[in-house]
């Protein structure tokens, strides 16, 4: 109880924690809304008109836009951008394991495709 009190008093002191006022919150909200609208625009308007060759560009576009949204949610809504560097690194660096799993399972799924060709 008193520990929380002390931490909060300390937080209020160094100014960085006032990082998110109402104006900035609404700004982030409009950015997230705009990115979602761009995704809809790609899905409903752009994608159906693309030639099959260009169609492969659509999924990377979705993923890049999603990562942008994730950045804005984590950095501003979850306030991570304003935390100490140590905490930021402690949360972000382990995410590299997820990238590792993506690479491993992408490779594995190529093998599954070949396996299916052999079996069928």
């Amino acid at each position: 109880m008193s520990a929380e009190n002390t931490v909060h008093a300390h937080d209020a002191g160094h100014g960085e924690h006032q990082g998110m006022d109402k104006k900035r919150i609404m700004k982030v909200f409009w950015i997230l809304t705009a990115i979602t609208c761009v995704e809809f625009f790609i899905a409903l308007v752009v994608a159906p008109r693309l030639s099959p060759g260009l169609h492969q560009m659509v999924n990377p576009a979705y993923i890049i836009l999603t990562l942008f949204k994730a950045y804005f949610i984590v950095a501003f809504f979850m306030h991570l951008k304003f935390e100490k560097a140590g905490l930021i690194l402690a949360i972000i660096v382990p995410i590299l394991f997820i990238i590792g799993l993506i690479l491993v399972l992408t490779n594995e799924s190529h093998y599954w495709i070949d396996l299916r060709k052999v079996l069928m």
Partner: protein
Amino acid sequence: MSTAVAQHVDEVKSTPWSGGKSPFDVEYGKMMMWFFLLSDAFTFSTLLISYGALRFSAPTWPSPSLVFQSFPGLIEHGAPLVFVGLMTFILIGSSVTMVLAVEAGHRNSKKEVVTWMLFTILGGLMFLGCQALEWTHLHSEGFWWGHVPTEEVMKEFFKGNVPLSQMTMTSHQFANLFFTITGFHGFHVFSGVVINIVITINVLLGTYAKRGSYLMVEKIGLYWHFVDLVWVFVFTFFYLV
């Protein structure tokens, strides 16, 4: 000489990792919430990456723009992404009201915290309601864990001519993965709503006003934003890709 040495020792002790202060400068519970969310991020990643690997290796897949083209209760066909778009905006909106509750907590404004928390709870309940409609709709078409629609219904969900064996196999994979992953996410939303209600009752009782800090609102806020974050990925990989 000895003074210089003493100063040098003092300098060393002033860095964040030299002891005597918290290097992360966050309260214990908030740090633990971050580490819990990191572990939850791994759980959701394994689910989504398994989905990706299965879908990537499948010869065909039910097309999202054909499976999700209804607005339950209003439009039966031809409205791809409209309903899920509404769900996404509801969840992003409830994330915004959550930050506003946290911001009001920094100003120790009890009344505003309660208002924004109630809006957040409402957003969460609306999202759960939408998901219930979506599940009911898919279930009425014949999708469920281990169940797929009849051949005529399934044909509508695939582009081009796909053999029945492939349609059945990939529809099974789609149904199992869809209900497991959105179900796991929905369970998180449900837990979040319950915890939000508990926190709101505590705010009303004046627990945090007595404590002098609304840090608990910040902690549940982190959880709530994480649920929103996961939905952003579920939305992309189930509905867009």
